[in-house]
């Protein structure tokens, strides 16, 4: 595992467990109990991408996420409580209950938010990167997206300008093989997705998105150069969502159970656990300890959020416009 030390591995492990247990709480409690409004897009199976990437990014780097963004938010440092409270529509949620599952944001963490109109966050990421470039800082903008976003005009327009203007934006593609129900080979003329931006001079790189260490190292390597010589980077992570597109998805498009099982064998949390145990980084008791602690943390955050007060209905009218007008 090269330069990755024990402490870092345990941070990766903890980060992935936090996402997994947070999402399982939504799947197993919020959704079945009818506490969830609209729907929620779970990233169970994709935790390694969020955690590995966010550890390689710096605190002041801007992050834009998608509809499937709980993992990105947690990995960027958001508290499970403010996220649960937001998803439950409570006043103490990160967005005062006005955003919900698809619009989590926290400006203090530079988690700029989720842009769930697929493809729309690529131009926004380029805009954030333009700002970073103009202010002469070494910060960069990271935009996460699913492979479906590559087919949007907005994404392709943004990729062209980002390369043309040499903007420090990193495009992080989570290829989970399905755009809702449509499989990759039915939506993209080229399934080697790492080649899809090469016409703009942006070389893509395919990365095993189920291995958090590989993700971390790939993002670290890609961003290192961007900070001194701005130019867009593009990584494609092979991953898989173990759940439906959203909480109510019937998943009729999935292949046979055997094929899914194959992916389940590549569960990113198990992969890291096996690695750490094989390497004698940790023993099984330590993993159990971590699991119990994080599960307990999630349980407590959830209980606290369920008990949190609702917003006053009239608060719906607040906050449409910023007050500052021209002086």
């Amino acid at each position, binding site marked *: 595992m090269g330069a990755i030390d024990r402490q870092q591995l345990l941070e990766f492990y903890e980060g992935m467990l936090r996402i997994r247990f947070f999402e399982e709480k939504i799947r197993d409690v919020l959704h079945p109990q009818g506490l969830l409004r609209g729907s929620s897009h779970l990233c169970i199976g994709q935790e390694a991408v969020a955690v590995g990437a966010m550890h390689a990014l710096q605190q002041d780097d801007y992050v834009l996420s998608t509809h499937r963004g709980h993992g990105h938010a947690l990995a960027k440092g958001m508290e499970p409580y403010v996220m649960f409270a937001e998803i439950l529509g409570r006043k103490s949620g990160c967005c005062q209950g006005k955003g919900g599952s698809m619009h989590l944001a926290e400006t203090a963490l530079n988690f700029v938010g989720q842009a769930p109109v697929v493809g*729309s966050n690529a*131009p926004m990421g380029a805009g954030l990167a333009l*700002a*970073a470039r103009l202010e002469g800082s070494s910060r960069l903008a990271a935009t996460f997206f699913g492979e479906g976003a590559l087919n949007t005009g907005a994404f392709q327009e943004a990729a062209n300008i980002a390369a043309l203007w040499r903007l420090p934006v990193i495009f992080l593609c989570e290829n989970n093989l399905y755009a809702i129900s449509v499989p990759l080979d039915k939506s993209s003329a080229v399934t080697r997705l790492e080649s899809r931006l090469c016409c703009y001079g942006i070389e893509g790189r395919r990365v095993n998105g189920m291995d958090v260490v590989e993700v971390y190292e790939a993002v670290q390597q890609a961003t290192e150069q961007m900070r001194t010589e701005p130019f867009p980077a593009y990584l494609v992570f092979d991953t898989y969502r173990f759940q439906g597109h959203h909480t109510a998805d019937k998943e009729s498009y999935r292949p046979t159970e055997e094929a899914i099982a194959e992916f389940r064998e590549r569960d990113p949390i198990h992969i890291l656990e096996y690695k750490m145990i094989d390497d004698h980084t940790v023993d099984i008791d330590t993993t159990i300890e971590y699991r119990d602690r994080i599960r307990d943390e999630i349980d407590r955050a959830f209980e606290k959020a369920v008990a949190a007060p609702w917003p006053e209905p009239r608060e719906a009218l607040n906050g449409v416009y910023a007050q500052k007008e021209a002086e």
Partner: protein
Amino acid sequence: MSERIRNVTFAQAIRTAIREEMKHDEKVILFGEDVAQYGGVYGATTGLQHEFGDDRVRDTPISEMAIAGMAVGAALAGYRPIAEIMYCDFLTQASDAIVNHAAKWRYMSGEQFKLPLVVRSPAGGGAGYAAQHSQALEAWFVHIPGLKVVMPSSPRDARGLLKAAIRDDNPVVFIEHKDHYSYKAEMPTAEEIIPLGSAEVKWQGTDCTLVAWSKTLTYALQAAEHLAKEGISVEVIDPRTLQPLDTDTICNSVAKTGHLVIAHEAVKFGGFGAEIAAQVVEKAWDNLTKPPLRIGAPFVPLPYSQPLETFVIPQVKDVVKQITEYLGA
């Protein structure tokens, strides 16, 4: 009274506002198609790249989605981008970033962010650009909570309102009339900021309130002048900003005249005139002596041929005729 410059074109007024604001605040940046080296297809940004450099004034590829989306991103990072969309009709391509993101990001995030951006776009017909380069789509954008919509009718207003729009912490859709760029009028030399949401009585009168904006305001003033000779006293009001809308100035005028006419170039059905009429009916019903009259384009795309286009867009004579009938009936 300040010294005045005469014969300033609308395009010069826009340029003056951007130039002053770029000097005032280094966070103000400008990008769009052909705005830099070429100075804009209507010349409104001539010389700005030369003065402020390649970083702050940029030509973009033909990528409306990216132009508007990048403006959102740059605004979220604390810049004050001015994005130009070459024709109002192309706002349809940029509308995801404007409608779904710029307008809502602050609200959705529980007021964590502000979005100080301006999207400038030329609208309107009269020059034979046909159906896809001539629309007046203001009614689409006033319907979106979170956006402000400005439509100036004179160089002085254009400069003062654009300066206010650039300094505002909210996304502003700033719609200019493409037939207006060479229109000359007085503009003060002194810096002037006109607050968004303030209408102006452009012509005083007592018999009828006529609300119009953008190029139709110019027609409204000509109509008022013509009607004055026939003994009909029209009060012409330019709301200048449609969102926020200064209904007080309009209602105060109606309290005096008892009659309300709204004239605009956009299609009458679902046009912004309907909103103004409804506002006045709700707020000042007792002051109206008869129902409001709306003047707008018939429900057709804008045709190319001159007689067809002139027939569709309300002209001075149409405003005169309809007001005469309205007051006489």
